Every structure is written in structure tokens, then in C-alpha cells.
């Protein structure tokens, strides 16, 4: 490109520095969004793997009923086995200082040295030592939640008694990066679950399993035939009663992290993509105005012999230069922001080893992509500049050419007061300007509504969780319970209502797809279950009658199922063929419901393994204690506490949404500043003339404000609707097999979005108004811009 022409490009940018800066800010935010979010996604992914590698996270864990400790040696000698650690894992209770019982898990580990598989990352204190008695290394999430440190005491239940044990260290484990007890623990919380790493001999002694282990964690050699190795291990362990084989990909903590990361990844692409689109639109608005204002210059360039291509390149260069400058700022902003996001996210999750890197490929990819969007945005105006005939271009009066046609429709319908006519005309008769400014307003609305949508939808999930189910307490049992237990519990003081049900993991097969679910077998007249039927069938009795199953809306959609379709489920009692009887709207997606009778008939006995309870608030802690004393009681939860757990689980999401919201508002401001100032500045001569013939600065400010108000009113409905639509699709990207986010935007949010945008419109017009009011009138009335 001609040097002089490029110099003109730079001078044009300098003369419209505020607009160029706003555009560069939009570009920078887009690039910063991509680099920070995608970079954080990569960093988190790397950090997880780094933690797994460093801490020798098991490729597979075998649970057995009980095996002699020396079985480890046998497994270690098998071909393809890299390392093995034998552990004794025992679930027990724990009594908090308040007296509230929660769950705890002892994991017996070799006291002499860190385990070869599933090592601990010591954050405070030390690892176990052979002479340690009544000593534990406490898992870090629980320690952090209750502010426990080495030398403090923990109080697990051992053989029915509360025993004080000394904390010698606080550690992270690759198996408990998310402290999940099992796959069914959909809302893991360190508040209600402690993991205690203790010397293996101590755990064996305390729980009467001297010389025994029940968990064998294995690392498979890389390159070994994994299936074959597992078969051989299975052969060795078969005599000891294998109860579960958990490969790494199905390990609860790893699976939860994977789903979380997947959601993060989708957002890391969706939000920046939206920002890139806004950048393309902003450059279109800016450049189409610039080209129009520079018609005489274009005519001159062409008259002097510059080719169409050179003229076009001149305007493309404008967009690309801003694209490059904005991208540089974006990289400088995005890289540290990404590191902060990674560290905050990893810190919140308790990831012990965090690796952050620079991603030059991401910078380059981002910049190239942004430049592509800039070209898309600028190609139209740049081409129109090249197509102009020089003589026509030089004669062109931009402000006059904008106006064509007759009086606006509004005016033909309503006789407007005189002072309203000008702003109305400006909006309706200068359509190109109004449309491009209006597009800016619409997209700003979209961005802000999107920000609100994320916040409202999250609040909705929490409220829904609170309001959709009616139970106050939930008790889960590790072995079947009979009707007698219901009667016993119902007779306790403060207990108002008890309802039994069954919870069990099942695999659902349909349409050639397979899905792990938690199946709830409930009474068709259940008063407690959160079933909210939203399909054709609204009656729970009908939806759960006979061979019917109720799926969640998300799962039905994912599996391509509708009411009346057949499915097969594999349960611990055998396989069942069922028909979809209804769909329920729930934010936890991997659940399904059948009637309690159906499962009890299949099992051949009237048993259950879980209870819903309504309990007077003042008796809830006491009831929890009593429930834990029932034989086989595995877990008791108070719903209020659960909701607290959800909220803390979602705390990170709030921070994330906060960042999205901030980006949205900044983008909206930059976009509106640009469109509003360009819109005002291209009418400098018009405003200067008004000033010259005696209109006061206040009068002109009023006219501009009225025009903004009219434009705002016109763009409100399309902007809010598009905001809703974009939010709807973005919620889908946030949903996973774990949670589904239903779009909720409150009327207050719509009002705040609309009012906020109006304020921003007026604020962003202020610099332009100040500029117009300070114009050198003698010069401005002559200018053709």
C-alpha cells in the first residue's frame, strides 16, 4: 500500500481518536475475552493433568470386600502394571463441634512413605510417619472450610464413638479435587464430608480389619494393553469379592472436573465469539460513516489516479490497523486476566498444582480471527468507497444525500409538536444512520441482557432448588429398610411427615444411546419429590403409572425421547422395559423417576433405601443425629444446609458471571460511545448552523437527547428480544449432563437493561455534545462532514 495513503489512514485515525480508541477498546475486549477465557481453559486443563501426573492419579481403582495386604505384591508383578497401592477405605460418621453429624471417609495409607499411586500433596504440616498414633492427614477442602490446621483435632466416629485425632498435615489428593463421595453425590460439599488419610495399620486396627485392604489403586504402564491388564488384575482380585472397578474417566472427582471444564470450554468460545461479532459490527458502523464523510476525498484520490483497489485498501487498512492495535492491547489485558481466572478458579476448587502458560498460538489465532472479523465488517464500506465515480464523489454533500423520500410514517399519522419534529425526522428520514446507530443500541442491549440472564438464571436455579421440593431432610441408607423404619421415624418428636423412596444408579438405553442416571422410585402420590411435569402429561399418577418412567426435560431432549417412547433401564435388580410417561423440568439432569411399586415388585420385597422428611426446624439437628443411629444410615442432609452448599458451589459461577457482565457493559459503552459520537459528529455543520442562527447549547443538547430517546424507544423491543434469544442459546452452552440452566430474566433485569442503555446512550453523547457546543462556528458552518 502507498506510504502516503497509509499515512492518511493513520492521520484519519488520529483526527477521530476518540472513536478509534473506542473501536480499539471493543477489539481489545474481544481479544482479551478470548485469550483470558480460552487461556484459562487450557491452563486449567493442563493444571489438572499436571496434578494427576505429579500425584500419580490411579488409572483404575478396584474395590473389594476385603483382601490381604500382600495382594498388592501379586498385582504389582503383573505385566503392564506400573505401580500399585493397597488402601483401606472406610466410610464413617463425624461429629462437628456443634454436635451435627456429617460423613467422613478414612483412607488407610502406608505410613512409611507416600503411596506410589494417589500421592498426597502436602499443603501444611507433614505426611504420616510410622510412629503416628491417632493421627491423620486431613483433606484440604474440609480443612479449609472449617479452618483446621496441623495440631488441631478432628472428631470422626470410630466404632460408634467420637474419637479425637490429631491433624499432622493438610493435603490435596488427586481423587478429591472435587470432594465427591460417589457419582450419586451431585452436590459435593466439603461442609458435610471429611476425608481423613491415616496410617494403614491404625485404620485396620480401628475398624477391625487387621492385615486387610479393600481398595487397590493401579497405574498402568503406558503402551500396555489396558484391557488385558485390567482382566489380569480382575483375575487376581476376583476371590476377594470385587464390588466396583472405577477407571479414571469415571472417578467421581475427575468426572465432575471434566464436566465443569467442558462447560467452561463452551463458554470460553461462545462469549468471545459474540464479542468478535460486536467488533465487526462496530467497525462497519464506524467505517460506513467515515466513507460517507470522506466522499470528496475519495473523489480526489480517484481523480488523482489512485486505483479502486488502493482506495479500498486505504479503508481496509483503517480497520486492520485498529484491529492490530486493539489486539495488542487485548493480548496485554487478556494474558494476565487469564492467569487470574485460572488461579481464582483453581484456588476455589482447591487444585494444588497450577500451571499457567503463555499461548502464542492462541494470541496469533485470536488476532488472525479478529482481523478476519474486521475485514468482514469493513469490506462493505471499503468496496462502496472504491466504486464511486470521482466527479460524483467530489460533488457529494453527505448530509443532504442522507435524506431522501417523504415525511415519516409517524408524522403522517400524528401531528407532532414542532420541537419534536426534528429529532423524529432525524431518526426516521436518515434511515441509514438510524439503522447503524440502532444496531449499536440493539447489540448493547443484547450484551447487557445477556449479563443479567446469567445472573437471573443462576438465582432461578437456586430458588427452584429451594421451592420445587417439599422435604426438609433426606436420609439415605446403605442397606434396604422396611416399613417399620418409616413408622419409627414418623413417631419421633418434631417429625411431621415421612415418605420412603428408592435411589439407585441405573443405565438407561434408548435410540442406540446409553446414559447413566440416578433413578428415584417414588410413590405416585409423592408429596416430596421435586417432579415438575412440563410435557403433555401433567398428572404424576398418570406419568408414573405401570411401566412408565419420567425423564428430565434435558435428558429426554438429549436422548431424542418423547412421551410414549420405549426405553430400557439396567438396575441392580435386572433390566426393565419402560415407556416415557412424562418429562420433568429440573436443573439436575441425570435423574429419572419410576413408581416405587414397580421397583419393589421387581425386587420382590417392600423395601426402600431413602427417606424424605418434614421436620420442625428446631428438631432437625436432633433428628439428623437419630437418623444416623439407624442401622445402615449412610447420609442425612438438611435441605437448608444443602442449599448453602449449592450456593457456595456456585460462588465461582457468580464470579465468572460477574466478569461476563463487566465485559458486556464495557463493550456496550464502547459501542454506544462510538455510534453516538459518530452520529453527532457527522452533523457538525447542521448543529453549528443552528448555533449560528441563535439556538442555545441547551436547545441542541435537548434535541440530541430527544433523538437518543426516540432511537432507544424504537430499538427497545428488538434489542430485548434479541437479548433474550442470545441468552437462550448461551444458556444451552452452559448446560451439561450435570446441570441444566433454564433461561430466566426478571422484569427488573429488562427494566435495568433498558434504563442502563438509555443512561449510557446519553452519557456517551455527552462528549459529542460538548464538542458541538464548543465548535468554532465560523469554521464549522462551512465544513462538509
Amino acid at each position: 500500500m502507498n506510504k502516503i495513503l497509509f499515512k492518511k489512514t493513520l492521520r484519519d485515525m488520529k483526527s477521530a481518536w476518540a472513536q478509534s480508541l473506542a473501536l480499539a477498546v471493543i477489539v481489545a475486549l474481544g481479544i482479551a475475552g478470548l485469550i483470558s477465557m480460552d487461556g484459562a481453559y487450557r491452563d486449567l486443563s493442563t493444571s489438572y493433568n499436571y496434578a494427576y501426573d505429579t500425584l500419580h492419579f490411579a488409572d483404575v481403582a478396584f474395590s473389594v470386600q476385603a483382601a490381604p495386604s500382600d495382594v498388592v505384591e501379586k498385582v504389582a508383578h503383573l505385566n503392564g502394571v506400573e505401580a500399585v497401592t493397597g488402601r483401606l477405605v472406610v466410610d464413617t460418621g463425624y461429629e462437628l463441634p456443634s454436635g451435627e453429624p456429617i460423613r467422613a471417609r478414612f483412607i488407610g495409607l502406608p505410613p512409611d512413605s507416600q503411596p506410589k499411586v494417589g500421592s498426597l500433596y502436602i499443603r501444611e504440616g507433614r505426611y504420616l510417619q510410622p510412629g503416628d498414633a491417632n493421627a491423620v492427614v486431613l483433606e484440604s477442602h474440609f480443612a479449609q472450610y472449617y479452618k483446621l490446621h496441623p495440631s488441631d483435632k478432628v472428631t470422626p466416629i470410630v466404632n460408634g464413638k467420637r474419637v479425637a485425632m490429631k491433624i499432622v498435615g493438610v493435603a490435596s489428593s488427586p481423587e478429591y479435587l472435587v470432594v465427591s463421595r460417589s457419582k450419586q453425590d451431585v452436590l459435593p460439599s466439603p461442609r458435610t464430608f471429611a476425608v481423613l488419610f491415616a496410617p494403614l495399620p491404625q485404620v485396620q486396627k480401628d475398624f477391625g480389619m487387621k492385615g486387610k485392604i479393600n481398595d487397590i489403586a493401579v497405574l498402568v504402564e503406558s503402551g500396555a494393553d489396558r484391557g488385558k491388564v485390567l482382566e489380569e488384575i480382575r483375575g487376581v482380585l476376583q476371590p476377594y469379592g470385587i464390588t466396583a472397578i472405577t477407571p479414571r474417566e469415571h472417578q467421581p472427582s475427575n468426572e465432575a472436573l471434566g464436566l465443569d471444564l467442558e462447560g467452561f470450554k463452551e463458554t470460553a468460545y461462545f462469549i468471545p465469539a459474540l464479542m468478535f461479532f460486536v467488533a465487526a459490527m462496530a467497525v462497519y458502523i464506524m467505517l460506513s460513516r467515515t466513507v460517507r464523510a470522506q466522499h470528496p476525498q475519495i473523489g480526489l484520490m480517484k481523480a488523482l489516479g489512485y486505483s479502486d483497489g488502493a482506495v479500498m485498501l486505504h479503508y481496509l487498512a483503517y480497520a486492520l490497523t485498529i484491529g492490530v492495535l486493539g489486539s495488542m492491547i487485548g493480548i496485554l489485558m487478556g494474558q494476565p486476566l487469564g492467569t487470574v481466572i485460572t488461579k481464582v478458579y483453581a484456588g476455589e476448587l482447591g487444585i494444588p498444582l497450577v500451571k499457567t502458560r503463555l499461548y502464542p498460538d492462541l494470541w496469533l489465532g485470536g488476532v488472525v480471527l479478529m482481523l478476519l472479523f474486521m475485514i468482514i465488517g469493513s469490506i462493505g464500506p471499503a468496496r462502496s468507497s472504491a466504486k464511486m465515480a470521482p466527479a460524483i464523489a467530489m460533488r457529494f454533500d453527505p448530509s443532504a444525500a442522507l435524506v431522501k423520500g417523504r415525511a415519516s410514517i409517524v408524522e403522517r399519522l400524528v401531528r407532532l409538536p414542532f420541537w419534536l419534529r426534528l429529532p423524529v425526522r432525524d431518526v426516521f428520514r436518515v434511515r441509514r444512520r438510524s439503522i447503524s446507530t440502532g444496531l449499536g443500541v440493539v447489540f448493547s442491549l443484547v450484551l447487557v441482557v445477556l449479563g443479567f440472564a446469567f445472573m437471573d438464571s443462576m438465582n432461578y436455579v437456586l430458588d427452584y432448588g429451594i421451592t420445587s421440593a417439599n422435604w426438609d431432610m433426606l436420609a439415605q441408607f446403605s442397606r434396604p429398610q422396611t416399613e417399620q423404619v418409616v413408622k419409627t421415624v414418623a413417631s419421633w418428636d418434631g417429625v411431621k411427615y415421612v415418605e420412603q423412596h428408592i435411589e439407585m444408579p441405573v443405565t438407561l438405553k434408548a435410540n442406540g444411546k446409553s446414559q447413566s442416571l440416578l433413578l428415584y422410585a417414588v410413590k405416585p402420590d409423592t408429596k416430596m419429590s421435586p417432579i415438575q411435569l412440563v410435557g403433555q402429561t401433567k398428572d404424576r399418577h398418570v406419568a408414573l403409572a405401570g411401566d412408565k418412567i419420567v425423564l428430565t426435560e434435558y435428558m429426554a431432549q438429549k436422548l431424542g425421547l418423547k412421551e410414549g417412547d420405549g426405553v430400557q433401564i439396567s438396575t441392580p435388580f435386572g433390566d426393565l422395559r419402560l415407556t416415557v410417561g412424562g418429562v420433568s423440568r429440573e436443573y439436575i439432569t441425570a435423574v429419572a423417576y419410576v413408581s416405587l411399586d414397580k421397583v419393589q415388585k421387581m425386587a420382590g420385597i417392600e423395601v426402600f433405601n431413602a427417606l424424605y422428611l418434614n421436620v420442625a426446624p428446631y428438631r432437625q439437628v436432633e433428628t439428623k443425629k437419630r437418623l444416623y443411629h439407624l442401622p445402615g444410615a449412610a447420609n442425612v442432609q438438611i435441605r437448608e444446609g444443602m442449599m448453602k452448599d449449592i450456593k457456595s458451589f456456585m460462588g465461582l459461577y457468580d464470579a465468572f458471571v460477574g466478569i461476563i457482565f463487566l465485559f458486556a457493559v464495557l463493550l456496550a459503552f464502547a459501542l454506544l460511545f462510538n455510534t453516538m459520537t459518530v452520529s453527532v459528529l457527522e452533523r457538525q455543520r447542521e448543529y453549528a448552523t443552528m448555533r449560528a442562527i441563535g439556538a442555545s447549547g441547551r436547545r441542541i443538547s435537548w434535541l440530541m437527547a430527544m433523538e437518543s430517546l426516540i432511537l432507544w424507544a424504537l430499538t427497545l423491543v428488538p434489542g430485548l428480544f434479541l437479548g433474550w434469544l442470545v441468552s437462550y442459546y448461551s444458556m444451552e452452552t452452559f448446560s451439561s449432563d450435570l446441570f441444566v440452566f433454564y433461561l430466566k430474566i426478571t422484569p427488573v433485569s429488562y427494566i435495568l437493561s433498558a434504563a442502563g442503555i438509555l443512561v449510557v446512550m446519553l452519557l456517551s453523547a455527552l462528549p459529542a455534545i460538548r464538542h458541538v457546543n464548543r465548535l468554532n462556528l465560523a469554521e464549522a458552518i462551512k465544513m462538509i462532514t
Partner: protein
Amino acid sequence: MDEAVIRLENVTKDYPMGEVIVHALRGIDLEIASGEFIVLLGPSGSGKTTTLNLMGGLDKPTSGRVIVQGEDITRYKDKDLTRYRRENVGFVFQFFNLIPTLTAWENVAFALALLDGNTRSLEKKAQELLEMVGLSDRADHFPSQLSGGEQQRIAIARSLANRPPLMLCDEPTGNLDVETGRSVLQVMRDLNRQERTTMVLVTHNTAIAPMADRVVWLHSGTIKEIATNSSPAPVSALEW
């Protein structure tokens, strides 16, 4: 000569142009009487538009005084200058400077409405002014639907909204063909003669000079010569 409506006293005007100071006016003294028709002539850069802008309160001098009807407008603040322009001056520009989104009568009414908060009678008053410039039949047309001459006549009608004692016209025929230019000048002459409006017209077109009562020749920011026409020529006699 009638009492002076405008008096310029040793007026200078310097413009910074990058690192250079341009001396647009180098100390001019001029008196214009009420009802006079003055033509300011001179080559580009001679200072004629600057002089006009100072008289109209669009700009302030670097030194000297601009006295209009006994008031030193160089001491006015922006707010006072706005009022001064609104109440005392009618402007006509080379590029018409009509508001493209307003019709002919609305452009005129825009100026009327600045003076009178009562907008009910605007249409009638605007129509009267359009009649004065012979364009009452084009009242509902937008500027883009009018010829250059028609647009300039609308601009004149607008400038008359405040019945100004002073009309300042900057190259009003500069963008018009001869015939249209003549019709615009005729309107100005009529206003000057019938309404006794003081008229100051800036042009580089010497052919217009014969219609003035006095011709002020400017050169390099100074008044080179002031010529008085004892019998100004009729507009129809002008040729260029």
C-alpha cells in the same frame, strides 16, 4: 449617512495554524450605517469572511472592538453572543446550511421558534416569510427536493425570521448559476430597500459590486479602499 449600526475599531484577528500565526485582520476600522448595502470584496485570504464573522458574533477579535448598535459585542460571553445572533443577525451562507431533515417552512420555523415559545402560529409566520422570497408553493419540500437557488432563498427567509436589523451574507451566490444568483441578489436588494435591513455581503465576485451602496476592498487583512456608489446599479444590470 445614517447613524452607524456597526463600528469596527482597530480590529485584529490572529489564527494559530499549526506553529504559524496567521494575521487574518491587521487592524481595520469600519463604520456601517443603518440600512446600508455593503459589499466586502477581496481575494482569498484578504479577511472578508473573518470580518463578517466578527460582525455576526460567530468569532471574537484578537484585539479591537466590534460595536453593534452601541454595544461592544467583543465583551459578550457565549450566552450573550447566542442571544445577539438570535435577535439581531440574519445569516446567509454559501452552502445554504439548511437542516436537511426539515421542510422549507420548518427550516424557517426553526429560527422563528427560537424567538417565540408559542409554536402555534409558526406555520403562518413561516409562510409569510416564504412568500417574501417567492417560495410559498415550495413550503412542504425538503431541501433535497429544491434547486440551489430555491435553497438559498429559503435560507434568506430563515435569516429574516427575527426581522434582523443586520443581514450577513457570505458568498450567497457562490454556489449558484448566474440567473439564480441574480434572483437571490434581487431578494436581498428588495429587503434592503423595503425593510431597511442593513446588508453586508461578502464576495470575491467583483461583478456584484455595482449594486452596493459602498464597496469595501480588503487585502491581506487591511482595508485597501472604500468606494461609494452614488447610484447603485439594479440587479438586472449585473453580469458575470
